[in-house]
């Protein structure tokens, strides 16, 4: 099952979208992201609800103070891999802030299949296919990240992390938020951790050497 996050400052039609999606693709579940005050709140909720792909309303200034395109920019700064789509009631051509590519903008009308109109139905199914594919890509990438993370974690234990420290922390943040890795004790995330570990190892070695001399 893949989880499609839905963000809208006035989500009056959420239930319709949810049913429409569920009816056509059992693998997708539409999840409402609400009760947020800020962009950071939204980001935290995305992690918390284990979202794989996002649908975001464009006009949200009234209740949030920012538009959907600005939010996508913010989300992608922290989560590069997650695919976000803008949903709008206005003409997609009218969103001209240049923050989201044209292919990632959809009209909310896409869910209105006009009583099983063939063309409309095909458009919606294509869109659902895009959502499914984007979710799968996101999960695959997370899996790959997990492998890389394990590699780096091993290095960390060996005290050889060095310049990869930043990458490690970033991977840890995403993967732990998605519950894919065990939470590490706070002090282990500290950059001084390796130094301390090294010192302990050296001390240990010295003790062993001293002991052998005896």
């Amino acid at each position, binding site marked *: 099952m893949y989880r499609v996050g839905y963000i809208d400052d006035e989500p009056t039609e959420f239930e*319709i979208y949810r049913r429409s999606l569920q009816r056509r693709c059992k693998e997708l579940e539409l999840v409402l992201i609400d009760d947020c005050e800020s962009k950071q709140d939204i980001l935290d909720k995305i992690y918390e609800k284990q979202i794989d792909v996002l649908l975001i309303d464009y006009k949200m*200034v*009234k209740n949030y*103070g920012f538009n959907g395109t600005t939010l996508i920019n913010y989300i992608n700064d922290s989560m590069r891999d997650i695919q976000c789509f803008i949903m709008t*009631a206005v003409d997609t051509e009218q969103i*001209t*802030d240049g923050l989201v590519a044209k292919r990632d903008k959809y009209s909310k009308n896409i869910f*209105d299949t006009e009583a*099983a109109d063939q063309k409309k139905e095909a458009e919606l199914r294509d869109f659902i296919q895009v959502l499914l594919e984007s979710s799968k890509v996101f999960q695959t990438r997370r899996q790959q990240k997990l492998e890389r993370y394990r590699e780096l974690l091993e290095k960390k234990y060996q005290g050889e992390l060095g310049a990869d420290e930043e990458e490690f922390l970033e991977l840890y943040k995403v993967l732990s938020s998605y519950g894919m890795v065990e939470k590490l004790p706070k002090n282990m995330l500290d950059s001084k951790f390796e130094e301390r570990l090294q010192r302990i190892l050296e001390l240990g070695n010295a003790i062993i050497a001293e002991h052998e001399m005896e």
Partner: protein
Amino acid sequence: MRKRVREIEFDVDAYTARLIGRENVSKLEGAVLEIVKNAYDADANVCCLYYSNTEECVYIMDNGCGMKEEVLRTHWMTIGNSSKKSSYVTKNGRIQTGAKGIGRFALDRMSDECDMLTISEEGGLEWIVDWRDFDGSKRISEVKAKVYDTDASLLEHVGIRIWRNQAVVSEIEKYNFSGTGTAFRLNHLHDVWDERTMKRLRNHLENLLPPDVIQNFCIWFFDDVTSVEEALITSANVESYDYRVDFQVTGNLVDIQIIRNEFDFRGEEQEVYTEAGFDEEEQAYLQGEKKKESFNMEEIGEKENFIGDFEGILYFYKIDADKKNRERFYYKDITGRANLAKKFGGIKLYRDQFRVRPYGEYGDNDFDWLELSARRNRSPAGLGKEHGNWRVGSEQMLGTVSISRENTNLEDAANRNGIQEGKGFSQLKRILLFVISEFERDRQSVGRKLARYADKKNQLAADLERMRQLAEERKRWEEEESVRRRQEKPTEAKEPPLKPNLPPSANPEDVVKLVSNMEQKQEEELEELRNENKMLQTLATTGIITNMFMHEIRTSTNNIGLELNAAYEAIEYDNDVAYALQNILRAIRVKKNFASWFGITIESIKKDKRKRRKHNIRTMLEQYMNTWNDILDKSGTDLIYECDSNIELWCFEFDVENIISNLIANSLASFDQEMDRRLEKREINLNIYRFESGLSMDYRDSGWGLIPKYKKRPELILEPFESGHHFDGEDEDDGTGMGMWIVNRTISEYNGAIDLSENQRTETGFYAKIILGGRNV
């Protein structure tokens, strides 16, 4: 498995190399420009170009620093390599203008053979190349140029003693050509150097350098018969002008100085100043004092300065003015003025004192690179017009804009044809247009005052003339009458004449009737036109409002569709009738919202609103304001509205509605603006109260307020096509720039006024005080 490693060099076909050069310097003018630039970059103080009609060859000579063998090998002979890329300030402090390493192809553009002597402090080198060697299938490394050491002097190399034009030679010999420099002899020329070519090149060279800027560098250009006066190139200059506008962009500031030189009040100064309403400050400007203005980038609609410092001088130069306008606007006499744009060009761009072609080049597509003509077509209003902006024509604006290679985002296009398009060049154009519009505003402010004064004077003059004629007729009639009476004997009783002896005249009653009929007809026609005008304004407002709420209207239509479709699917797939019913009920609720939208948009053009009558304002607006209240409530906006009950105004209903609709539409657009923080509240206050014989509206909102571009001069928003557009991106603006213009027009039709000055004092929110019919409608 890999074996036997070896490296193979890249090479290029010689012909291709030549083609690249040709592409870069495609015109003869461009080639000449490159050569003069090289002389300037070499710190020369003179550059001579001589075409020998008898030998059919060209000699070029400068007294710059020449080239050392190392420079010749590594820079001159290496295509694409330029010694000016990294260090570009010469010993004498000139900023070198070339950098692409392709300028030398200019020589190829001009002739097949080139014989160059270059003398540096290390001695002389002669370099000979036949550009035809580049033809065929040779590789570039196989094409060789010959280089000799030589002790010949520059003057010997060009054989100045045998030049036909000895008059010019004697002038050239006064310069120091005994030391370093570079001289070329170009044989087998590609162009016919006839009189036309010479004229074209001379005009080009005259415009190569900005006037009065370059010291210590002169150009001689001549053939066998050119006179000394003509041979020395003098930069084209603007000697007479109507307006001069100097501007400097320094960091975040744009400084503008405007000099008016267009008006001559012919000894009537005091009368015109008083009657036309020029205050003391204005009078000083009309007498030639500079009008200084200063703006920061935000105030001109720019986020930041992407291009760095630059400056320029622009001239407004009318080519003709008919007698009527000359008298009406007190223009100075400009009889016999030539079209200077042909000689001087339009607005020309100079980089480090050298012309960047082809901007402002007369006859070229880029002559009007700021698209002034298109701008004028969009706003064709005359100078004295009260509504509508006067715009300058492309051939009336001349000048120079000076940039430097130190400016960022303004790189040369590789083909030597202008500047690379991009955000820097777009900003340059926008700033120039801003400077031009400041000048236009100044000129029109004078023009409007003078036009009003002329109209007032004309009316008086016409009345006076009519009275004078009547008086004369009366006088004549009285004289005739007294003569007639004297001729009659007073004692003789006579039969009264059949026809009274009065001057022939029309029946006064008929005249009164005729005049009254004519007035009525004229009034009817005017009324019809006024109504038509009002209708158009209302339609425009309807368009603006509909456009403004397109998102909400679309959302409502979408939602009706979605709900109905959901109901269909619930029954069809799930047989869930209860759920379907809920969907249908929601669709009906959304449908009801539409009624409100129609109340504001389509209803506004209902026929009964198009009749002028005496209205009680509170009653008239009741329904309309309730509708707005519904709409605003749904968009989370509070409307606090109050209106006195005793205001009576003779008006069209939709005029007052148009004003309110446009103001509210602007407020909502401001509320929806995305800023770095959330807007605290969405509130609109409208208070309408009685004022003199009309009404006053106090309007304010809690939005983000006017953008910096309008903060200092909020009245600018009343001009047509002004819209809150930040000019820093390619994104289109939502506004039409018509809303506040319509508001202003309507206000002036009701002898009203609008005061926006509160906006200057407050950081956020929008404020307007509007008076309608306060001084009789």
